[in-house]
C-alpha cells in the first residue's frame, strides 16, 4: 500500500480548517491514516468525496494510547450513524463518513462550543500560555543585554524569540476572539463561528519560514567560526533530545501503564535527561576554559 507523509502545519483549535484540508486531500486520493508528532501519514488511493469531522473528547489524553470505555462508547455511537474513527491527537478525534451523510456528528452548537472550551482549557491553552510566559520572560531579560552590546547574532536570537511570541500570542488571541464571537453568535440564536482561515494558515507558514531561515542564518552571524559550529552541534543535540523523549513516550504508552504513571515517567525521563545533558555541557565547557 502506497503512503505519503505530509508535514501538516495546523492549529489544534482550528477544527474547520483541518476538516476542509482533509476533505480536499481525499478528493486528491490522499486518506489520513496516522498522525505522528512530526508528520501526518496518508494512504494513496482513488480520489473520493468524503466528509471528515474533527471533535474533541475530554477523556482522551496524549499519555494514553488505549481508548477508555467512554471513548469506545462515543465511537460506537458515531459508527451507528456511518462515522468511522480515523485517528486522534491528544483530545482531538478525527472521524470520516461519506460526503452525502446528512447527519452531522455534532448537531447542537451550544453543546459543541462548551465541549471545545472544556477540552482546550484543560491542556492546550494552558500549555500555550505557559510557553508564551516563558518566552516573554526570557525576551525581557535579554533586551537590556542587546541594547548595551548590540551584535548580529544576539539580534537574530531575539528575532527568533519575538517571532515565536508572535506565533503563540496569535494562537491565544485568535482562540479568545473565536470564543467571544461564538458566544455572541450563540446568544443571538446564531451558529458556532467557523474556526481557522486561509489568512491564519498563511500567517503560520510565514512565521515558520522566517524562524527556520533565522535559525539557519544564526551560526553564520558569529564572528568566530568555532562558535557557529558549536551552535550547530547544540541545535542538533536539542533535536536529538526531542526525538528521544518522543520515542520514549511512544514506548511507555505501549506498556499499558496508567495515564498518570506514563505522564510521570515521561516528564521524569525528559527532565533527568536534560539535566544530565546540561551538567555534561557545563563540565565540558569548564574543562576547556
Amino acid at each position, binding site marked *: 500500500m502506497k503512503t505519503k507523509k505530509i508535514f501538516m502545519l495546523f492549529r489544534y483549535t482550528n477544527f474547520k480548517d483541518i476538516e476542509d484540508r482533509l476533505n480536499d486531500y481525499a478528493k486528491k486520493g490522499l486518506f489520513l491514516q496516522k498522525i505522528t508528532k512530526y508528520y501526518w501519514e496518508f494512504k494513496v488511493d482513488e480520489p473520493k468525496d468524503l466528509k471528515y469531522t474533527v*471533535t474533541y473528547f475530554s477523556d482522551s489524553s496524549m499519555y494514553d494510547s488505549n481508548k477508555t*470505555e*467512554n471513548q469506545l462508547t462515543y465511537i460506537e455511537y458515531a459508527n451507528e450513524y456511518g462515522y468511522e474513527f480515523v485517528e486522534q491527537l491528544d483530545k482531538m478525534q478525527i472521524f470520516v463518513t461519506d460526503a452525502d451523510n446528512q447527519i452531522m456528528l455534532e*448537531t*447542537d452548537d451550544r*453543546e459543541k462550543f462548551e465541549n471545545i472550551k472544556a477540552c482546550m482549557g484543560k491542556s492546550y491553552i494552558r500549555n500555550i500560555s505557559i510557553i508564551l510566559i516563558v518566552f516573554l520572560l526570557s525576551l525581557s531579560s535579554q533586551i537590556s543585554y542587546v541594547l548595551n552590546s548590540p551584535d548580529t547574532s544576539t539580534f537574530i536570537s531575539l528575532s527568533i524569540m519575538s517571532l515565536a511570541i508572535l506565533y503563540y500570542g496569535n494562537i491565544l488571541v485568535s482562540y479568545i476572539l473565536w470564543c467571544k464571537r461564538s458566544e455572541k453568535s450563540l446568544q443571538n440564536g446564531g451558529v458556532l463561528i467557523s474556526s481557522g482561515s486561509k489568512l491564519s494558515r498563511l500567517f503560520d507558514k510565514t512565521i515558520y519560514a522566517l524562524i527556520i531561515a533565522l535559525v539557519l542564518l544564526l551560526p553564520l552571524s558569529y564572528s568566530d567560526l568555532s562558535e557557529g559550529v558549536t551552535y550547530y552541534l547544540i541545535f542538533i543535540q536539542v533535536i536529538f533530545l526531542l526525538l528521544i523523549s518522543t520515542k520514549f513516550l511512544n514506548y511507555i504508552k505501549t506498556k499499558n501503564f496508567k495515564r498518570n504513571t506514563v505522564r510521570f515517567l515521561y516528564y521524569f525521563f525528559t527532565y533527568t535527561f536534560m539535566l544530565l545533558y546540561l551538567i555534561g555541557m557545563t563540565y565540558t565547557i569548564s574543562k576547556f576554559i
Partner: protein
Amino acid sequence: MARDKYQTLTEQMFYILLCLENECCGIDITKTVNELTNGRVIVGPGTLYNLLEAFQKDKMIVETKVEGRKRSYLITEQGKELLKKEYERLISLKSDYEKFQNGGLV
C-alpha cells in the same frame, strides 16, 4: 454552572430528556427523537454522547443498565423538574404570542 447551562434547553436537550421518561438506551434515543419530530430535530451521535454525559453528571438522568457498551438511562426527578420548567416556559411563550396576536396588549 449547571443552572446557567439549563436556563433554557436546546431542542436536542429537551427531546433527549423527554425520551428518557421511559428507560431507553443511547442510540435508540436519536431514533425516537427522529420519529417524534418527523425528522425535524436530529441529534448527532457526538452531541448525544456529550449531552448524556452532561445530564448524568448533573443528575438529570441516571444510568440504569449496561450491556456491553450499550447503556440505558432514565430521567430523574430533578430532570423531570427541568423538563417541566422548560415546558412551562414554552407555554408562556405561546400564550404571550397569542395574547399579542389577539390584540391583548392594546
